């Protein structure tokens, strides 16, 4: 191998000018990428991993600038290059894949045209005369089925995984030397993630390209990269070979990150940093002691939710009436599922996007009306009550929910305290300012939210703090059942570890039942006694967590499990 690395970042410092003075987002970072190497930059939000890659491409926004250090890309000084040189470099020599594939594609242009745009700008290969052959070839490379038809598709006609493939095709169209992938699979299902990552690795290997993979997921970094750079708060804290870093992490932050990553063979407590994990006693095992004959807390039978299809095909089919409609007029989002949750039990509802798990939870929450089926809660049939009427009934306070996005689920104009007491003011029996405040502080203590944060607005709180506010609000009315809709999906792994432990403790303490809706089997296993795996509106497998994860029966469950990238972790 030549001594000259493809990309050499030395002592890089990036500053952002803000109202509160200059913020150094990245400080004294050294990174080098050899030809043909795959490097992972791992870190939690705010660690500066994305800013580093933007500096390499020199696409920092106006407030940001490279203050110190140098970026050399195969002999070119990126810092001193003119904008024209950079434009040549971007796309042809260095290209980038962004997190949200749909946002990266122009929604009103056909994907084939978009690929040709890139080709025309950089290599003048694709002339009008070749009838899109080059673009079709590019689509073929990323294994898109029927590329000739997809050439004419608009981004909204393709699934998330398909869109990401198109973005990869765009990025690789000009055979760049370096590919920067910024969280390329966040937001995709695990099976899609595996397919996309396998594709990226295969293509870059074949073309002998270098890759920088920016991710928060240690498992992903371990599975696909040669070397790993760990960043924390704008600094590189550790650089090592992928195999070494997992076997023998040096920096305390790396160790903490690894501990916090959910994986096989560990309990919830193991995720916490050592000193905290040791200090806290193992929680009492969830007492899912459902006495024989005792009624389950929640009983779902043959639950169905149908949506009318409103596609052009259906309408046209009706108008012309010649061809019988290919698809039925209704779409079954949830197709006759039955399950139960016992008192004090936590049940995981797992599946990929579109499997109907969220629809199911919305119907249980009575935010959505079911088409048919029985929902029995604590012996009462609540399925017959209209969602609008349910809001004022006493049962409302018995079923509560923790939402997926802590930011979206808090009213931006309410303080944390106001958000927490909102259910009490509507449905609770505590009246009076002081009593409410006292209850609010009690709840804040329970969820580990410092009292001085109670008067802040959501935008003044961190993600973990917002999640705690959401949990405090959900438990404010002593609910019997709490639906957790991916409560940690938007959080960093270390915060996720803390929040999961908190949920476990609260459950043991308050005797609640959980319905945990998630796409992440690893996380579900930690918190749940039983797991239900859903696919296309049906339950494909159901059983105790250990059994489903260690000995899956259904082929789909097996596929889900193998798709999860596992870091080869051994933490003693």
């Amino acid at each position, binding site marked *: 191998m030549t001594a000259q690395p493809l990309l050499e970042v030395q002592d890089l410092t990036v500053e952002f000018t803000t109202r509160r003075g200059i913020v150094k987002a990245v400080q004294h970072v050294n990174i080098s990428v050899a030809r043909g190497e795959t490097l992972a930059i791992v870190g939690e939000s705010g660690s500066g991993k994305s800013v580093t890659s933007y500096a390499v491409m020199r696409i920092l926004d106006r*407030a940001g600038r490279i203050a110190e250090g140098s970026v050399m890309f195969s002999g070119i000084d990126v810092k001193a290059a003119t904008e024209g040189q950079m434009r040549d470099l971007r796309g042809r020599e260095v290209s980038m894949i962004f997190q949200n594939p749909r946002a990266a594609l122009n929604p009103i242009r056909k994907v084939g045209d978009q690929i040709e745009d890139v080709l025309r700008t950089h290599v003048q290969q694709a002339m009008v005369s070749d009838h899109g052959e080059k673009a079709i070839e590019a689509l073929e490379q990323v294994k898109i089925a029927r590329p000739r038809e997809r050439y004419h598709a608009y981004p909204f006609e393709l699934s998330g995984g398909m869109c990401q493939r198109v973005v990869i095709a765009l990025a690789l169209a000009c055979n760049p030397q370096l590919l920067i992938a910024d969280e390329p699979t966040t937001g995709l299902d695990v099976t899609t993630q595996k397919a996309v990552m396998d594709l990226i690795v295969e293509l870059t290997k074949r073309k002998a390209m270098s890759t920088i993979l920016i991710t928060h997921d240690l498992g992903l970094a371990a599975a696909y990269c040669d070397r790993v750079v760990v960043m924390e708060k704008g600094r590189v804290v550790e650089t090592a070979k992928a195999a070494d870093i997992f076997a023998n992490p040096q920096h305390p932050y790396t160790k903490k990150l690894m501990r916090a990553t959910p994986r096989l063979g560990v309990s919830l407590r193991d995720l916490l940093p050592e000193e905290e994990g040791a200090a806290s006693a193992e929680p009492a095992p969830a007492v899912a002691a459902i006495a024989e004959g005792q009624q389950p807390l929640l009983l779902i039978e043959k639950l169905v939710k149908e949506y009318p299809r409103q596609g052009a095909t259906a309408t046209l089919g009706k108008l012309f009436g010649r061809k019988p409609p290919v698809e039925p007029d209704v779409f079954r989002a949830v197709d006759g599922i039955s399950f139960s949750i016992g008192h004090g039990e936590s049940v995981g509802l797992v599946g990929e996007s579109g499997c109907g798990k969220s629809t199911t939870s919305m119907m249980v929450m009575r935010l959505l009306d079911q088409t048919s089926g029985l929902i029995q809660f604590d012996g009462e049939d609540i399925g017959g009550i209209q969602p609008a009427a349910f809001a004022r009934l006493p049962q409302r306070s018995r*079923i509560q929910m923790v939402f997926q996005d802590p930011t*979206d689920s808090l*009213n931006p104009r309410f303080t944390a305290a106001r958000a927490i007491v909102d259910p009490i003011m509507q449905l609770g029996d505590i009246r009076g300012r002081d009593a409410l405040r006292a209850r609010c502080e009690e709840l804040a203590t329970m969820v580990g939210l410092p009292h001085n944060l109670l008067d802040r607005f959501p935008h*003044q709180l961190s993600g973990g703090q917002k999640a705690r506010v959401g949990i405090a609000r959900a438990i404010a009315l002593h609910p019997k059942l709490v639906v957790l809709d991916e409560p940690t999906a938007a959080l960093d792994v270390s915060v996720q570890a803390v929040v999961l432990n908190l949920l476990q403790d609260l459950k043991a303490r308050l005797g609640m039942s959980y319905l945990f809706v998630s796409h992440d089997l690893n996380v579900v296993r930690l918190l749940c006694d039983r797991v239900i795996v859903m696919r296309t509106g049906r339950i494909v497998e159901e059983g105790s967590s250990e059994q489903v994860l260690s000995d899956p029966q259904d082929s789909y469950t097996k596929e889900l499990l193998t798709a999860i990238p596992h870091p080869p972790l051994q933490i003693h």
Partner: protein
Amino acid sequence: MSTVAPAVEPGPARTSGLVAILEQTRYVLGENKVTGFSFALLIVILLAAIFGPYTVPYDPLASDTAAALKAPSAAHWFGTDQLGRDIFSRVVVATRLDTFIAVASVVLVFLMGGLAGIAAGYFGGWTDRIVGRIADTIMAFPLFVLAMGIVAALGNTVQNIILATAIVNFPLYARVARAEANVRRNAGFVQAARLSGNGEFRILLVHILPNIMPIMIVQMSLTMGYAILNAAGLSFIGLGVRPPTAEWGIMVAEGAGFMVSGEWWIALFPGLALMIAVFCFNLLGDGLRDIVDPQRRT
């Protein structure tokens, strides 16, 4: 509970809501000189509206035929009109009436259009269709002609000018409010409010309305200028306030005939006042948009 220690998570320095707003205002005014200027103008206009009638040198209605049609001088800064009334006094005194009409009509249209729009966006369905069609119907007319028609039909009073101006602006408010409420109707915090036992109307007023207020305030400032113009325009063509009341639109109308004979000051000064007021509210709207826009809070 000792099992989970509250994690030390970074948070911004503690600032109360009011202080933050004042700081933001100061920042925007400092960054944007034009906005600062428009705020200063607004203060001048408000002072004139409140204290004008008590401080002007002449009675705005007192005629003095000996001093008719005098050019601006030390005694009469803006000159006098055909009846010898002091134009400076009349321009200043008219500020109160004109801003009152504008403010009242904007508040009225906010109550009608804003609330109807929020309801349309939140409930959808028939509410949405009815509000939408009302807005479409109003938009089908040339707006000033519609305002003329309303005043002509209902009668020449200040209340009817306010009403006409409000109705003409209805579609603007209804559409903005509808769009804003529509994107929030299924937001997480609205779902959470439902789980907390809030009824639909309570969600609308307590949870959604406050989130839409910033954009509505910007809208109000931007339409304020139009409201002033509309009121003055109605008076100009004789459908609004009646002479001899001091009002910018009437004064411009009265002075227009004298322009050809060289007495330019009669129409010019009330026209300038009108222009400055409209200008001020439009600039203010742009500035307010910066203040309420969280994107600017970097």
